[in-house]
């Protein structure tokens, strides 16, 4: 197994590990934000709800390069949020954390959609019944709403993770293509394609991407089925 031509090299393992780390961080960081937005959109009745809905979905339809450019403006070296994060000891420019931030923004709409659908599928009449049985609003949320919505929340997390694994345009625009720091699977494939004679690397990394995405989608679908199949992505 010592560096046979068709085996995965240590550098490639590094790329896979970085991709998984970036995607996991993006998913975990996005979850509370996505849940709060999904809750507001599913249950809230407030002025500007349609506008909020539109803003949440924006990364889904904007050219990723535009999203990346907007991230540069806000989170870049001179951006307000960027300077604040750097002062807090968590710089994002040209760091893996920046790649996670880009992936997070791109995954947000998908996660919000999945969680929102699962929240909307929770029968409000069950919540009312729980209130009459002595449960406060908070307890109803913890014992009825959340458990019933959980498969959809998990499906949303898996979807967000899969979307993060595939993130390319916003990432390369925002934090560039730096091996070992921001070069995730898609960026590594892109870099390898620029150099002749790297077909082996491209093929291996592409197959790994297909495998990881497929596993994530199937996992999401299994979770959706368990919920009663009301928010399929496949």
């Amino acid at each position, binding site marked *: 197994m010592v560096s046979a031509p068709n085996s995965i090299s240590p550098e490639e393992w590094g790329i896979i590990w970085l991709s998984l780390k970036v995607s996991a961080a993006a998913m975990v960081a996005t979850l509370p934000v996505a849940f709060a937005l999904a809750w507001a959109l599913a249950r809230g009745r407030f002025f500007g709800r349609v506008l909020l809905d539109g803003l949440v979905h924006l990364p889904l339809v904007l050219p990723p390069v535009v999203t990346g450019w907007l991230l540069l403006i806000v989170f870049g070296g001179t951006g307000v949020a960027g300077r604040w994060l750097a002062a807090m000891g968590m710089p994002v420019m040209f760091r893996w954390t920046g790649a996670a931030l880009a992936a997070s923004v791109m995954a947000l709409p998908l996660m919000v959609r999945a969680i929102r659908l699962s929240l909307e599928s929770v029968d409000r009449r069950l919540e009312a019944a729980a209130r009459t*049985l002595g449960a406060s609003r908070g307890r109803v949320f913890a014992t009825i709403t959340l458990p019933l919505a959980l498969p959809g929340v998990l499906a949303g997390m898996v979807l967000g993770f899969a979307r993060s694994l595939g993130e390319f345009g916003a990432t390369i625009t925002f934090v560039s293509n730096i091996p070992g720091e921001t070069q995730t699977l898609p960026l590594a494939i892109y870099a390898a394609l620029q150099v002749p004679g790297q077909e082996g690397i491209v093929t291996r990394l592409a197959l790994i991407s297909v495998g990881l995405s497929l596993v994530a989608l199937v996992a999401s679908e299994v979770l959706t089925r368990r919920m009663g199949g009301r928010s399929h992505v496949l």
Partner: protein
Amino acid sequence: MSFEVDVRLTRGASRIAARFDAGSGITALFGRSGAGKTSVLDMIAGLVRPDEGRIAVDGRVLFDAAEGIDVRPEARGCGYVFQDYRLFPHMSVEGNLRYGWRLAAPDARWIGFEQVVEFLGLGALLARRPRQLSGGEAQRVAIGRALLSGARFLLMDEPLSSLDAPRREEIMRVIERVRDELALPILYVSHDRREVERLAGQIVEMD
């Protein structure tokens, strides 16, 4: 008086108004579909807020618009039995039964778990999920769940209407036993004249 109800609610084009005093036993709220009977129960349970009026049960004021009193639903001590059972699908029958019991203050628990299981014949069902129950079984569990929550009065919203004839008879007997042996005041919504005449000691007509 067990129930003192005087409520008014406007919802879109429809106006619901109800005013009655009711004693012990079963009081039927009787009227055609769409008369707002369920809304009256929802207002007594605290799930819907009346525009104006007053609600008291056994002398305890639950709602009084003029006084600014509006007791939260979880603090009203009401056992609500729904037409569609509303059992929690992610819990077993036992989990459903114990849901309100766990939340009730110890001194509010006037009936024990084993007692309810025996009273309603639920022993063989405890490990099942709600979707594995027949309509009659589900309604028995729902009644048991309401009793175990420490309810001081029951609201029953057409509890027989989703059931076939033999099951209706079964649940009707259960309700008669709740009325006679547990002595809980019950407000009972129905549009079936025969059902109402058999069960209720007092009838309030709504139109």
